[in-house]
């Protein structure tokens, strides 16, 4: 269940930034998950929800965006995206779309990124 430790880090990051910005609550968190991380987005979302109870994050909408896989193929020098099949959890075997080879460097798709948060705060100008 490594979603738990990732969710914990996500929640801490979001709350830290929110507190620094004097937020009263967080309304939305957008998280990017690489398609090659061995993270299940639904489980991650559930865990963030559980860990958010009684925090600034409690009411927030959790949005998860997938980051597609990109590779550099060492066999044919193809650089670019790899189509991934629509699995409900991400464990694709990556082949080069040009030469079908598997000797490749993965350049994108292994991220777990807290991209943005939306916060609600007192309007000082009001």
């Amino acid at each position, binding site marked *: 269940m490594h979603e738990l*430790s990732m969710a914990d880090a996500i929640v801490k990051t979001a709350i830290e930034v*929110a507190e620094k910005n004097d937020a009263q609550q967080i309304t939305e968190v957008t998280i990017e998950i690489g398609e090659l991380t061995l993270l299940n987005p639904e489980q991650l979302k559930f865990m963030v929800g559980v860990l958010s109870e009684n925090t600034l994050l409690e009411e927030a909408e959790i949005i998860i965006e997938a980051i597609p896989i990109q590779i550099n193929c060492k066999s044919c020098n193809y650089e670019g995206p790899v189509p991934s099949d629509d699995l409900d959890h991400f*464990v694709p075997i990556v082949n080069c779309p040009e030469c079908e080879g598997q*000797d490749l460097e993965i350049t994108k798709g*292994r991220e*777990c990124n807290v991209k943005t948060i939306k916060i609600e705060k007192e309007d000082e100008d009001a």
Partner: protein
Amino acid sequence: MHKIAEIEIQHDIMVANKKLAKRNQRILDKSDVFAVDVLGAIGSGKTSLIETLIEKMDYKIGVIAGDVISRFDAGRFENHNVPVVGLNTGKECHLDAHLVEHAFGDLPLDDMELLFIENVGNLICPVDFDLGSHIRMVVISVSEGDDTVEKHPLIFKDADIVVINKVDIAEAVGADENKMVNDVLILNPDVVVIKSSLKTGEGIDEIIGNIENFMKE
């Protein structure tokens, strides 16, 4: 009145662990300690292999033993009179760089040359977490089935050494160990793949030789 603000964070949790891992490697390098992250499934023979390497390798060795609960594996290593730190991960299924850094504080790094970090038995979760080791050695055995490599490709992509263990019982469990070797090499042509058996001693010298080659690099 309230106002809504959108704040750009762009904080990659994976990168945060990688930074800690790099710091771990700097700490190891400062003390001239070469670290091997040993990954593999439950029951693949990680603990027994490390015990064998402790006995056969002529270095000052230390061990970090990751377990979900208990000090069972740590206790086994202590019987070999080497410094050991047991790390309990609780509900977690992997070690991370932060936990490993904590363990460094309880090891005599300046009086060590080689550190084995036994990860939690699991072919999935540890993949995403660099620990700061110099190499990754993945141990699987024929008894897990000869489709193990195909089913868990990612762990083999980042490996430096792959050990296919328990080849002495391959026939008894109906597994084709050569298929496992080939599957690894398809995924990662640069990796060193070694067939081994702790019962017969097959492959042990080869594992030691390869770890030593990496130490010299």
